């Protein structure tokens, strides 16, 4: 918990998400506890992104309930989301990182001091005054992570944050995520990168065809996956 009342656990019960009559997700029953780094895994189109967006409240559900320990407005203020394609505001890097703090009422000077600190922490100290849309792909994703973490969220959702990044950028982002987890931020991250999941996950949610097939500690998932789909996925086989 990062100050004040905790918003966790998050409980999903019988959650269904549909688009134009087509069921993308569910029914899902899931509890996200207060600690750990959960990795949501599964092949493309399995429903990882939809699940994260449902949990965060970005996608409306067609059925079931999503409940935080506190009312939704208070819960939303203690969450952050990093998108697969980082959204770059038409501002300088420092202003982009400071944006959530200014949006929620912090004075510009204090917000920029904290933004500079976060920029240095994620390795963006050299591009502070550059225009955010003009920096490299890896730098954009670091910016997105810094912007998400600057307001000290209690839970951070990340949707394939290292997709299309090289090894060095991936390692740097993973280091920041580990630091955030140690500082008490609950992390839920979607990825289909097995190596990354092995390095980071404390537990794994395996999604396939819009349904959760496994929720299990990471060690057990990688060594004793129960379902054929999960076993095939862990072995690097093609899962359809």
């Amino acid at each position: 918990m990062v100050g004040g009342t905790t918003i966790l656990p998050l409980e999903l019960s019988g959650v269904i998400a549909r688009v134009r009559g087509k069921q993308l997700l569910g029914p899902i029953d899931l509890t996200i506890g207060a600690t750990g780094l959960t990795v949501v895994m599964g092949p493309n189109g399995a429903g990882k992104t939809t699940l994260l967006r449902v949990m965060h409240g970005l996608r409306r559900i067609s059925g079931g309930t999503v409940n935080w320990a506190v009312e939704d407005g208070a819960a939303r203020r203690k969450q952050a989301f990093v998108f697969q394609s980082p959204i770059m505001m038409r501002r300088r890097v420092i202003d982009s990182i400071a944006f959530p703090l200014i949006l929620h009422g912090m004075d510009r000077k204090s917000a920029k001091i904290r933004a500079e600190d976060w920029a240095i922490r994620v390795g963006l100290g050299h591009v502070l005054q550059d225009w955010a849309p003009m920096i490299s792909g890896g730098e954009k994703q670091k910016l997105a992570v810094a912007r998400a973490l600057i307001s000290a969220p209690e839970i951070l959702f990340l949707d394939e944050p290292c997709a299309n990044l090289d090894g060095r950028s991936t390692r740097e982002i993973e280091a920041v995520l580990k630091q955030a987890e140690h500082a008490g931020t609950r992390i839920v991250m979607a990825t289909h990168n097995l190596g990354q999941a092995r390095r980071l996950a404390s537990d794994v949610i395996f999604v396939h065809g819009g349904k959760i097939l496994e929720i299990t500690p990471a060690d057990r998932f990688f060594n004793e996956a129960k379902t054929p789909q999960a076993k095939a996925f862990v072995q690097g086989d093609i899962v359809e």
Partner: protein
Amino acid sequence: MDSISTGLMEAFRLILTLDSDLVEIVLLSLQVTVTAVAIASLIGLPLGAWLVVNRFRFRRLTISVLNALMGLPPVVVGLFVYLMLSRSGPFGVLGLLFTPTAMIIAQVIIVMPLIASISHQTIRDLWAEYHDLLISLNASHAQRIKVLLWDGRRALITAVLAGFGRAIGEVGAIMIVGGNIDHATRVLTTSIALETSKGNFAFAMGLGIILITVAIAVNLAIHTISKTERASTW
């Protein structure tokens, strides 16, 4: 061709001699147009953004009407404002008819839908980019509008300049509500209409060239101040 070349020479003569009547007309043209565009922008830009971030019944209809109003016939607007401000009209008591204020009111009505409609289209694209981020950060509707207007400010200059272009070249409405009174409500466009009707084609052409020059100068000045077309800015 003779009128055009004579007009060019007349334009140079008027500018070089700083003709006092010309200076007065140009300044009044700018005063009326800039004021009208400023007021129309204060209404139109937030309205365009508001229409993007809000979902309500009849939203599509509202946007369609706004788009249709871009082609509002100035003469009809002039007639409407004339009837509103004439002595027998509801606002006749204010005594605004045949004043620059009446011309500003007419121009605001003509230009505001244009600015709102163009800004709506511009901000709609930016909203598609920012939507998830601003929802995720729990930004209020007012904050969303503020962020979109600020981050889209350079693109929104196009909307304001389109409004300026329409207003500075407008003649029908301001002729009706302003009356083209010498030293009171005469502006560049109404002067051109008057001189043309009198057969002074060279002088009218001279004024026309000055009008175009003023419009280009204002556009250039705004682009320069706002640093558009530079690779390092957004």
